């Protein structure tokens, strides 16, 4: 049978077709390119409005702000790829920073081993999230809303309304934040390294493939014989560990740590992930996109501060970016899925 596949239509192709959005795979690529284009547009716009934007110092400060957000977004991405959310990242950061630096202050002999302790805390808290979502079947938004309060409650209880002061922090970590390597803050390099490590892991480890598969179609993944609980718990553990590490970095940067450290940051993190093109429905998007999303957010914040606009405008702008990003995602999602019907018309056997 002849397949009338690629005959061009007589009428002018729509915008969607011209952008190459008609093919599902291409739509996903375009989505990623879109973030880059948006970032470039932002930079052009800010540069043209204020000369102070495009200076080496300012760009460094943008990247420094983006660094912490980008690492946290990498962790969140793991969870969002499975079609879930982790609202407790801020609390995990807070718990880790407080507990670890408190212990480090009391027991200086621990030295750099405290990092291992942080990993352990992240692992346990992430696993709790994962178990709630999988084994108990609690919708992730509710489960992590619960642990958001639980973990924060724990750290308040532990802290007893006291602070870990900057003097208690081990010197090696205290000196990390102001350190520069090759002209950029150490945090930027750490963020870059972590994002690449997670990105490569997602690409090359079977676990990464399973994560995407599960996010795209959880039921089919189960029917494929994949251990779906293990996939989701793994994502939460990954997110927990990464949040714990970010907690250390943030704590070291802030210096004086109270029990409220990093509260509310989960919204910024989610915003970065979503702007970066990680589909909130799961199964598509990349760590690099999320990191880029963090840079976009940092750029918006920085540029608007330079312009001296009010906080309310910053929120409006950020909100607009989030809604626009999700709207584009919805369009891409539709393209990917609707490719089904349109192509099946041509490809008969």
């Amino acid at each position, binding site marked *: 049978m002849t397949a009338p*596949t690629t005959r061009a239509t007589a009428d002018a192709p729509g915008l969607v077709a011209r952008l190459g959005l008609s093919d599902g795979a291409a739509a996903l690529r375009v989505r990623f390119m879109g973030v880059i284009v948006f970032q470039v547009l932002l930079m052009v716009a800010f540069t043209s409005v204020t000369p102070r934007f495009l200076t080496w110092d300012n760009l460094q400060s943008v990247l420094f702000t983006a660094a912490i957000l980008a690492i946290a977004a990498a962790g969140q991405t793991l969870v969002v790829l499975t079609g879930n959310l982790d609202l407790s990242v801020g609390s995990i950061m807070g718990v880790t920073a407080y507990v670890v630096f408190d212990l480090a202050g009391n027991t200086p002999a621990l030295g750099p081993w405290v990092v291992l302790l942080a990993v352990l805390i992240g692992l346990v808290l992430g696993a709790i999230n994962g178990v709630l979502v999988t084994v108990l079947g609690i919708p992730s938004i509710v489960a992590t809303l619960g642990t958001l309060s639980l973990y924060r409650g724990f750290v308040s209880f532990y802290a007893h309304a006291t602070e870990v002061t900057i003097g208690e922090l081990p010197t090696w970590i205290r000196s990390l934040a102001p350190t520069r390597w090759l002209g950029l803050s150490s945090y930027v390099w750490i963020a870059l390294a972590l994002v690449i490590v997670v990105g490569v892991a997602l690409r090359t480890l079977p676990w990464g*493939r399973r994560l995407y598969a599960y996010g795209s179609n959880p039921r089919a993944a189960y029917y*494929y014989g994949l251990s779906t609980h293990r996939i989701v718990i793994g994502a939460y553990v990954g997110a927990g560990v990464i949040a714990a590490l970010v907690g250390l970095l943030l704590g070291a940067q802030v210096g004086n740590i109270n029990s409220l450290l990093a509260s509310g940051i989960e919204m910024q993190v989610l915003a970065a992930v979503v702007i970066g093109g990680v589909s909130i429905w799961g199964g598509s998007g990349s760590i690099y996109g999320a990191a880029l999303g963090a840079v976009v957010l940092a750029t918006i914040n920085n540029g608007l501060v330079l312009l001296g606009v009010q906080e309310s405008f910053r929120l409006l702008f950020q909100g607009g970016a989030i809604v626009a990003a999700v709207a584009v995602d919805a369009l891409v999602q539709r393209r990917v*899925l609707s490719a089904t019907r*349109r192509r*099946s018309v041509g490809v*008969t056997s």
Partner: protein
Amino acid sequence: MADSTRTSTTTQPRLRVTGVSKHFEAVRALHGVSFDLAPGQIHAMVGENGAGKSTLVAVITGLLQPDAGHVELDGRPVRFRNPLQARAAGIAAVFQDPNLFPHLSVAENIVTGRYPRSGPFLDRAAMSARARRTLEDLGFPLDPDRLVAGLTVAEAQFVEIARAVDQDLRVLILDEPTSALTPGEAAKLYAIADRLRAAGTTVVWISHRMEEIRELADTITVLRDGEHVRTAPSAEMGDAEMIRLMVGRSVVLEQVPRTEPLGPARLTVERLTDPGVFEDVSFSVAEGEIVGVAGLVGAGRSEIARAIFGLSPHLTGQVLIDGAAVHPRGPATMVDHGVVYLPEDRDAEGVISTMTISANIALPSIRRLSRFGFMRGRSERALATRQRAALSIKGEIEDLVSSLSGGNRQKVALARWLATEPSVLLLDEPTHGIDVGTKAQVHDIMRDLARVHRMAILMVSSDLPEVLAVSDRVLVIARGRLVADLPIAEATSEQILTHATGTAGSPR
């Protein structure tokens, strides 16, 4: 019920489709399709998957807007912007998969949007009464206060039809209405179609099933590749002719005699029971054998296959793979034991349509394809290329599965299991909704897998010609029990139906 006084005395067609074309970007779905439908007729619309039937229905019901051409209803040009408008004008479509509100009652579903009221309030009693009357008129009494969530597919379909006929109905379009129904339920649907025809409604019946087209249709329209091929009275178009027009070649489901010997039993189940679903089921499938599982929908056939794959938590009894007892804890366990299951609902359960063909095929074999815990792109591509060639899957291995047709998606679903080199293949309606040509291909693949690759295949199917063409043995399940185990040489459609319905004579 449609109002019978409106039956036209002129020869004006009820529905006239003139030069309808529809493109989706570069793909032509419909091209200059024109035909007339007379009032009070059952009109079969046939064509392979992708012939344009669904697109045409979407255009007629206002789900899609045509690029060119128009539709006339009783001589008036109509252009519906959505299915609601079409419904208001008397055109309703019922699709394969019922679209109902599961958390509402049958009555609420039937009268959706036209709720009887007393003052500002819903008149529940009137609503129930009206729904009950409609259902009884259709010859399908069903408690109108039941929740739709608990209904069988057939019942849900009747509720949809009841919803359609609840108002003045001129054209009823049924898209593959019997694909999920048992013969008995289908017979009820035939009776409803007959009744609607007598009342002057034009019924458009889209189907893959020759028998029912023969039994019901007054006229037949054949579509192929988005073009109208022919509309003719049923009497003037023989089966062979119809198939020739549809596919441009003749395809018949034929048995291919087995020359290879059967091996030892690979899958044995003993006293398998899932309370309330099926009971005390024992059988075995040998190496190189294809065992068909026939029976009515809802008899527990799919559930047995799913239970063997570990999808039933309350299972008791024994499952033995190559003689060793295995507890079917979940799909992961069973896949490890070489037992794989191809679900009926391809898109929801069978493939991950937003991933590439190659990723889908490699997914269950990822561990084997990795070295030192890292995936190797080259082995993955090699595997995908091999499977793609073996099953002749259309499309490149880097294409998304969502871009494939149903038949090719099914092949991808199959390919990913074959890549794991399983020993037992459980197939649930493997060719459901697949066009005739691909169907025969899938059958050939199945025979090859059993006879050459020595797999044991258990195939659940509602398509009797398919069961008879492919199986070496036929198990018949009725009301959750295994009621017959027929060697293929002795099996006939009539015999299978007799066992399945538990009646002595022929069910129809």
